[in-house]
C-alpha cells in the first residue's frame, strides 16, 4: 500500500513538473512572438532610436552586414539608384534603414562609412543580437551565422528582401532582391500613393 502510494506521488509530481516545463516553454515562445518592434531601441548615427521615430513615413527595412561581398552591395546599389529616381518630395516621404546583422564585427563608424556612401540620408540600426534577432524575426527575416573554411571566419546567411512599412509602422509589403532599380522606384511610388 505504502509503495503504491509513493509511486503514485512520484507519477503525479513528474506530471506536474512536465506541465510546468511545457507552460514555461510556451510562455517563452509567446513572449517572443509578442515583441513590439516599435519599441526596440537601436544605436543610430544620431543617437538611440526606435521605429516610432519614423512613423509618418514609408520605411524600407534591409537587414545586412559589412563583410557581405555581393548581396548587400547589390541591394545598396539598387536602393540608392531607386531613391535618386524619386522626386525630392517623394524622397522626403521615405526612409531607408540598414539593420546590422553582425554586431560582433561591424561598428557604427564602419557602418556609416558604408551606408552613407550610398546615400547620406540612409539610416543605420545597430544593436546586440538579443534585440536584433526577435526584431528581424517579427519581420519574417531569418539570419544565421555560418562558419566558413575561409579567412573570413564566418558569413551570415540572411533573407534578402526589403521589408516595407507603412506610415503607422505596419508591414505593407516587400521588395525582392534582384529587382531592377527603375521598377523599384515605381514600386516605392506605389507604396507612397497607397498611404495618403
Amino acid at each position, binding site marked *: 500500500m505504502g509503495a503504491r502510494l509513493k509511486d503514485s506521488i512520484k507519477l503525479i509530481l513528474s506530471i506536474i513538473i512536465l506541465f510546468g516545463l511545457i507552460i514555461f516553454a510556451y510562455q517563452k515562445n509567446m513572449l517572443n512572438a509578442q515583441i513590439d518592434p516599435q519599441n526596440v531601441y537601436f544605436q543610430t548615427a544620431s543617437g538611440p532610436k526606435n521605429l516610432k521615430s519614423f512613423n509618418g513615413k514609408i520605411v524600407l527595412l534591409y537587414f545586412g552586414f559589412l563583410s557581405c561581398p*555581393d548581396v548587400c552591395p547589390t541591394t545598396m546599389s539598387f536602393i540608392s539608384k531607386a531613391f535618386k529616381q524619386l522626386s525630392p518630395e517623394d524622397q522626403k516621404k521615405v526612409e531607408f534603414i540598414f539593420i546590422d546583422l553582425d554586431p560582433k564585427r561591424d561598428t557604427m563608424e564602419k557602418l556609416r562609412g558604408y551606408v552613407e*556612401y550610398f546615400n547620406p540620408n540612409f539610416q543605420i540600426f545597430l544593436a546586440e543580437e538579443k534585440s536584433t534577432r526577435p526584431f528581424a524575426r517579427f519581420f519574417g527575416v531569418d539570419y544565421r551565422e555560418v562558419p566558413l573554411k575561409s579567412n573570413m571566419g564566418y558569413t551570415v546567411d540572411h533573407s534578402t528582401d526589403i521589408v516595407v512599412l507603412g506610415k503607422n509602422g505596419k508591414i505593407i509589403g516587400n521588395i*525582392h532582391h534582384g529587382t531592377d532599380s527603375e521598377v523599384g522606384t515605381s514600386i516605392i511610388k506605389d507604396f507612397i500613393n497607397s498611404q495618403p
Partner: protein
Amino acid sequence: MFLMFFFSQLSFAGAISASNVQIRLTPPVSKTTAMFLTLKNSSDKEVKLKKVSGDLSDNIELHDMIMENNSMKMRAVTEIKIPQKGEVILKSGSLHVMIFDIKKELKENDKHKFKLTFDNGENLEIEASVKDFNK
C-alpha cells in the same frame, strides 16, 4: 606559351580565355569585394579553375551564392568547373571570385592584374577593371 592581347579585356592561355573581367567598386571602408568574369574553354576536356592570386590582396577565394527561400547563402568552393567547349560566367548572385583584405583603395576604372591557375597546369594572366555598379 601564351599570347597576351592588348584589347582591353581579352586574355588567352592555351585552352582557357577570359573576358569582361570586372571588380565591383565598393566604399573605402569596405575591405571586401567581388570580381566577375567569363571563362571559356576551347578544349574537349573539362578544366577547373583552382586559384586566383594578385597584388590587390593576399586573400582571394572562389565562392558561390545559393538562393533558398529568399535567403542568400554564400559558400567557399575549392574549384570552378569550365565545361569542355563551353563557358562559365562568374557574376553577382552566383559564382564569383571573392577578394578580401584589399590592400589598395579601389578607384573607378583602375586596372588590377591577377593570375588564374587551372588544374591542367595552365596559368592565365588577366587584367580587371574596377567598375562602379551604382551608375
